[in-house]
């Protein structure tokens, strides 16, 4: 069942969500970099290497997972020089590179570098990062910031450009329209929902890095709402993401308006889940 999402061709509609799969480790451990997935969405690439947040980073929640990971990664230079070429040799299907940063220039520099690398098939903007130059706490929480960032990225790449939205906003449709106005090819709905676990002794976030986000089955209804809202507000293709655990979850998101669906937290329990869902969808 070949599909096209935001000008990117996929052999079938299942992907991973950024930050929920490590293709290099999966290849080493299981002998398959992206089992049952049409391609691979990388972890968010930041300009500089990042160690990620101090422990603790995860906590269970009812029908969900709380996390505060902090975007660990090798940084742009090492990603382009080492990891991306390696991924190209082991991933079956297109590689979608997730890009993050802390200023417009951060994003633009990474997008421009990826544009000239044939191993990168498409680019996903993780707009849930702050813009420290403007003082905006989350680019994706502000329509103007989202449009400016998407437009700036659009100027330096002809590759399919996706914008991954947060549902922790007052009106996701407004943000979706801004991404469309900025030149996005597709939307990814949705990132984790702002959430946390509390240290009872201090009243502060239990996570070493503070903050936190909720993923897993608990957020599927939020994802459905976001997909419907974005479908009604824009003409963009949508990748649905949030709480997908079964073929019926995929059907629900596609009925809501998604043309492709990403798996996330459920992969942690079952790294072969995409195979199971594909078989169920085929039957």
């Amino acid at each position: 069942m070949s599909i096209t999402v935001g000008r990117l061709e996929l052999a079938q509609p299942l992907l991973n969500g950024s930050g929920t799969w490590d293709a290099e480790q999966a290849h080493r451990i299981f002998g398959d970099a992206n089992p049952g997935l049409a391609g691979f969405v990388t972890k968010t690439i930041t300009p500089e290497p990042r160690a990620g947040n101090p422990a603790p980073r995860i906590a269970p929640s009812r029908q969900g997972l709380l996390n505060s990971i902090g975007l660990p990664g090798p940084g742009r230079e090492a990603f382009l020089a080492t990891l991306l070429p390696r991924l190209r040799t082991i991933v079956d299907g297109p590689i979608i590179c997730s890009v993050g940063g802390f200023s417009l220039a951060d994003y633009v520099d990474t997008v421009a570098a990826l544009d000239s690398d044939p191993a990168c098939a498409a680019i996903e903007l993780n707009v849930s990062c702050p813009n420290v130059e403007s003082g905006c706490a989350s680019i994706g929480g502000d329509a103007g910031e989202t449009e400016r960032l998407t437009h700036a990225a659009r100027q330096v790449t002809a590759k399919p450009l996706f914008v991954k939205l947060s549902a922790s906003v007052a009106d996701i449709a407004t943000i979706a329209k801004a991404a469309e106005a900025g030149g996005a090819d597709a939307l990814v709905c949705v990132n984790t929902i702002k959430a946390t676990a509390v240290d009872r002794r201090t009243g502060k976030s239990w996570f070493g890095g503070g903050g936190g986000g909720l993923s897993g089955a608990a957020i599927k209804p939020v994802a459905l709402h976001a997909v419907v809202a974005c479908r009604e507000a824009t003409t963009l293709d949508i990748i649905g993401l949030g709480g997908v655990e079964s073929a019926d979850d995929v059907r629900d998101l596609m009925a809501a308006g998604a043309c492709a669906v990403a798996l996330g937290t459920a992969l942690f329990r079952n790294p072969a889940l995409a195979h199971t869902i594909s078989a169920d969808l085929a039957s």
Partner: protein
Amino acid sequence: MSGVVEHATRLGPHLARVVAVEPLGGLALVRIEPDPRTELGAPGQFHMLSNPTGRDYLSRPVGLIQLDDGVGFVVDQESAASDMAGPEITVLGPLGRGFDLSETSAETTLLVAAGFGLTVMARIGRLHTRIRLIAGLRQADHLPLLEQVTGVTIDAPRIAPDLVTDPLSEALASGQYRQVLAAGPTGLGAAVARICADHGVASQIALEAPMACGFGACNGCAVQLDGTWKRCCIDGPVVDGARLLA
């Protein structure tokens, strides 16, 4: 540490039948049906277990142990009666890096373990007999856990607040031991590594950390290694103790 052991891992979990849940003092021993898919791997490697009903939303890392008549694992009684209860358990593994036992001998190797770390030593005791084990327990009703640690020579166990580090220092001062293999809660690893370094003795430490996946995807199991944050499931759980001190 170059000789760490890894095994190829089957993609995807499989269902294992639970044949018995037996009280083990304040803990519980869960026996699962022998199955060629349930490969134990090397001592120190772990498996991600979860309830197929989804009652426990996240899998948990557990060290499987070899029993005389099969395979099993130890959990707290509350988990055995709730999250992990049921006729089947979902098993993914073996995962992570295990102990390098190439230099192991009863004459020169000392084992140190506390809590669930003792189940790791149960594996080593079946491969290398008569090694001395310094054991620590959080509470006295966990003492029956030691019944599962066969093949080793166990010192009188230390029950909290007594620490395993006191007899460890005394043992290393004798000059007999060339390496220490340790497993236990977070604080134990760093303390053992420090004492070993002070005595010029090599150490391998099996770390514990909360995990959601066990295969490098979730980045949740951050542990401090080499002065930065690394994934326990990928870099460990067994690491050279010197890496905890960098």
